[in-house]
């Protein structure tokens, strides 16, 4: 699978958080791509998937907004339709947002224009970032680099453009998770007979993003040790948190109503161990 295949697929199927992957229809109706209403609707949906990660501002339980405000150079790798880049721009940071997908770049620029924000939004391959070494104070990527056919190269590039002492934040899908084990390996791989036709990478790609349709070209969920190993030359202490914001839906898939009936305190110990996402953060040496 080449970067070109990945680029084409995401250009045709941008992450809209709609009822169908790549489409702009939500539960309350259809929205026109690129309008303010659409961006606000998308943001509400995206935020609702991640409620435990918000405090007073979206994702402020993860992002160090207070340390990287006005005057800080912040890089997002894989900006999608610009939700997070917008929040960093509102924080006052000088935001550079890059994406391999021309639709994402166009839509993020549109969003910034509509919301009166300044940002440097560019079409760029995360494996070959066109910035000098040590350019950014903070770099992050949310749910993107597990779609890269060369994760090591992507992370190496991110660390190259980060200043020494600069911080990073990464969200990647977690292989050691209920969603991976139950939905992908057991349900689709074994029960639905897909193991006969698909190897582990193809299975994860088919049954992660876009699973209700035909899957996506490349998704390889990671393990903590794998990513720590890649980041070890650049960061001595990578902090890894398991984010279990998927747990309600995963448990409901497991047994109808289970995710709704169980109290949150019963779900928490599972979410923090076997959630679908890893949040890795640290400081470049």
């Amino acid at each position, binding site marked *: 699978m080449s970067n070109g295949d990945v680029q084409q697929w995401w250009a045709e199927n941008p992450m809209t958080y709609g009822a169908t992957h790549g489409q702009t229809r939500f539960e309350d109706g259809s929205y026109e791509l690129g309008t303010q209403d659409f961006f606000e609707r998308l943001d509400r949906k995206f935020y609702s998937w991640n409620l435990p990660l918000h405090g007073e501002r979206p994702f402020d339980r993860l992002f160090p907004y207070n340390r990287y405000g006005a005057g800080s150079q912040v890089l997002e790798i894989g900006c999608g339709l610009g939700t997070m880049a917008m929040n960093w721009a509102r924080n006052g940071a000088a935001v550079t947002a890059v994406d391999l997908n021309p639709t994402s770049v166009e839509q993020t620029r549109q969003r910034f224009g509509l919301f009166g924000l300044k940002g440097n939004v560019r079409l760029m391959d995360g494996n070959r970032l066109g910035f000098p070494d040590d350019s950014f104070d903070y770099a992050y990527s949310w749910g993107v680099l597990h779609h890269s056919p060369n994760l090591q190269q992507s992370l190496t590039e991110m660390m190259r453009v980060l200043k020494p002492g600069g911080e990073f934040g990464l969200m990647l899908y977690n292989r050691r998770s209920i969603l991976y084990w139950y939905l992908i390996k057991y*349900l*689709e791989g074994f029960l639905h*007979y897909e193991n*006969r036709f698909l190897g582990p990478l193809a299975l994860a790609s088919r049954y992660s993003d876009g699973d209700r349709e035909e899957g996506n070209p490349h998704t390889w969920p990671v393990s903590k040790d794998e990513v720590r190993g890649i980041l070890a030359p650049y960061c001595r202490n990578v902090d890894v948190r398991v984010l279990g914001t998927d747990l309600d839906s995963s448990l409901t898939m*497991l*047994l*109808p109503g289970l995710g709704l009936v169980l109290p949150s305190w019963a779900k928490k*110990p599972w979410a923090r161990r076997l959630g679908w996402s890893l949040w890795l953060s640290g400081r470049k040496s």
Partner: protein
Amino acid sequence: MRQKIIGLYSTASWGAMQEASRKKSRSPLGMYRRAVQYKANPRDEAYMKSLFDSQYPGAPFVNVQQDNSWRALAGSADAIVLLYPDSIGFGFSRLEKEVWRLKTGWAEVRVLNGRRRDFLLNRTTLRALRARRWIEQLMLAEFLMTAIFVCVTPLLLMADFLRGRR
């Protein structure tokens, strides 16, 4: 000589499931049916027809609920393609048995499913698919996992408490 191929499509098992989905029934049976339907993710007739036409251009596509002529066609076909809307053929057991009874000795039975997989359906594969249908419908693994969940949760809560995690 051109092979005579026929595609057989059936919605025998999905009618009640789709009805439960539409009504968003909150009864246990309704929730169960919605869960099975959601996980199986069956494709609709239009999708399966388009898929069959692309894989077997020119071959007749027959909805067995609507067209009784399929029996005569199947009896003289060289290859019968069962068009599972889902991946493992929920609701196809009766049709499979009838196809095996009707087909000529040399005729091949194949599956083209809603996951776009095309494979030969021999006795071994059929047994494997039927076992999977039962396991999925009975939700054996899910009940086992729920039992594990109930038993292990207190232990995890205790571990978190001792580590000072709330």
